[in-house]
């Protein structure tokens, strides 16, 4: 049951990734197409801070962090666990992956927050 739930979550977050990563690409790469802005300008420090101060961007980044990291790290766990690991080793792998995920998510969330509350440039 637990494995079924973990796998279902891996699949359920896919629509979230598809939409948010699509938006992320539109902002970072299709800025000339969608925002009438050069790519240099879209990635400029001031533009980035302005973007990150909006509530919508804050929500998008936190969700993309959670969904992308979960999907990718669950997939990595599956690949590693195809090896003939002893149950003890399998536990080590699970906890290792979980630790990496939590740490990277914490860093990303902190940076997103730092941008959100930035006084502006």
């Amino acid at each position, binding site marked *: 049951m637990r494995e079924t739930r973990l796998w279902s979550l891996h699949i359920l977050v896919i629509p979230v990734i598809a939409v948010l990563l699509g938006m992320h690409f539109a902002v970072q790469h299709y800025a000339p197409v969608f925002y009438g802005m050069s790519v240099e300008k879209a990635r400029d*420090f001031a533009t980035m801070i302005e973007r990150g101060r909006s509530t919508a961007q804050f929500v998008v980044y936190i969700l993309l962090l959670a969904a992308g990291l979960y999907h990718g790290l669950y997939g990595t766990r599956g690949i590693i666990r*195809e090896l003939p690991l002893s149950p003890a080793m399998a536990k080590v792998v699970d906890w290792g992956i979980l630790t990496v995920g939590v740490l990277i998510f914490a860093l990303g969330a902190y940076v997103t927050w730092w941008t959100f509350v930035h006084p502006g440039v």
Partner: protein
Amino acid sequence: MANKPTAYNNRLGLKGWVYAGNYTFERYLYIGHRLSGLGLIAYMVLHIIETANRMRGEEAWAALMGLFASPVFKIVEYLLFAAAVFHAMNGVRLLLVELGFFLGKPQEPIFPYKSSVMKHRPLTYIIMLLAGLLMALGGSSLFFK
């Protein structure tokens, strides 16, 4: 002893990572899906660490973006884009298979047997053609604007 039937020993192991036989079209797609998935997650982790550089201020950020504007990074960028397109398109195909779409109706197994993989294959080709088209479009806007 190698195949002692325990809960965890009955797998191909490292050999299964590298070589597990049955090299059909879908098998190559599987390898591609795995490599692109690993590439994307590796990129994502580095990307989160790299974009955290904004906390070191405007100069540090501008220097980093300048580095990414170099030709080498443009190629790296394109490879990453191609990996994302392939992974997403093949991922949609996998979802359809896993949810049971386009596999044909279940039938009694009477010789000559029909394989659901073959039933699915025309769709597989269409999806891969679409992926190729998207990659070409992305590349053309990136390299020849």
